[in-house]
């Protein structure tokens, strides 16, 4: 079956612009996660959605970052007024249930802020 998909695969933007990243989870997966991977560094948790519960936003690095999810489907991660330190690969994952279940990752969106 189809895995997690993300778009765009690459995004180059200018400092100060807003960007929107999209994630389509595996059909039927109730949990969705966003992570950030800076060059040469490990994955950092950003945000977690589980069903219709309020999202866990504890990993968002600043109020310039926000995310939404429509039901148990598509999610968008928005970064406002991008900064150069926002340059990274943004990874989305989904799991059938909560994080104790296996998370399956998408290919990521590589964001470059000039």
């Amino acid at each position, binding site marked *: 079956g189809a895995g997690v998909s993300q778009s765009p695969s690459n995004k180059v933007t200018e400092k100060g612009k807003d960007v929107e990243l999209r994630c389509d989870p595996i059909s039927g997966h109730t949990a969705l996660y966003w992570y950030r991977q800076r060059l040469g560094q490990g994955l950092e948790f950003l945000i977690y959605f589980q069903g219709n519960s309020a999202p866990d936003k504890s990993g968002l690095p600043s109020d310039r970052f926000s995310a939404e999810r429509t039901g148990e489907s598509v999610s968008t991660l928005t970064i406002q007024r991008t900064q150069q330190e926002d340059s990274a690969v943004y990874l989305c994952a989904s799991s059938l249930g909560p994080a104790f279940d296996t*998370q399956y990752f998408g*290919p990521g969106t590589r964001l470059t802020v000039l």
Partner: protein
Amino acid sequence: EDQVTQSPEALRLQEGESSSLNCSYTVSGLRGLFWYRQDPGKGPEFLFTLYSAGEEKEKERLKATLTKKESFLHITAPKPEDSATYLCAAPNNAGNMLTFGGGTRLMVKP
């Protein structure tokens, strides 16, 4: 604070030269230890989940084991196509995120 530490950071092997990668963790009440493989420019690919000390899982040339404080990924007779970064991760107690180690970059030369 939950911590996951991997060693070595990088490992160079000759084809056929077996070795092990280490993942140590400080997570109270471990609810699973996950191993992923990540190729350059791609997202992590799931390999194994281990839930209890003493558990072992195998897939082709890879075998993952778990003790109360660490996990090992053993690679037997590796091939160049096994070259990748191997990541381990553990969920926090709330079950809403994974804490990842820094990864081990494995290079297997023919």
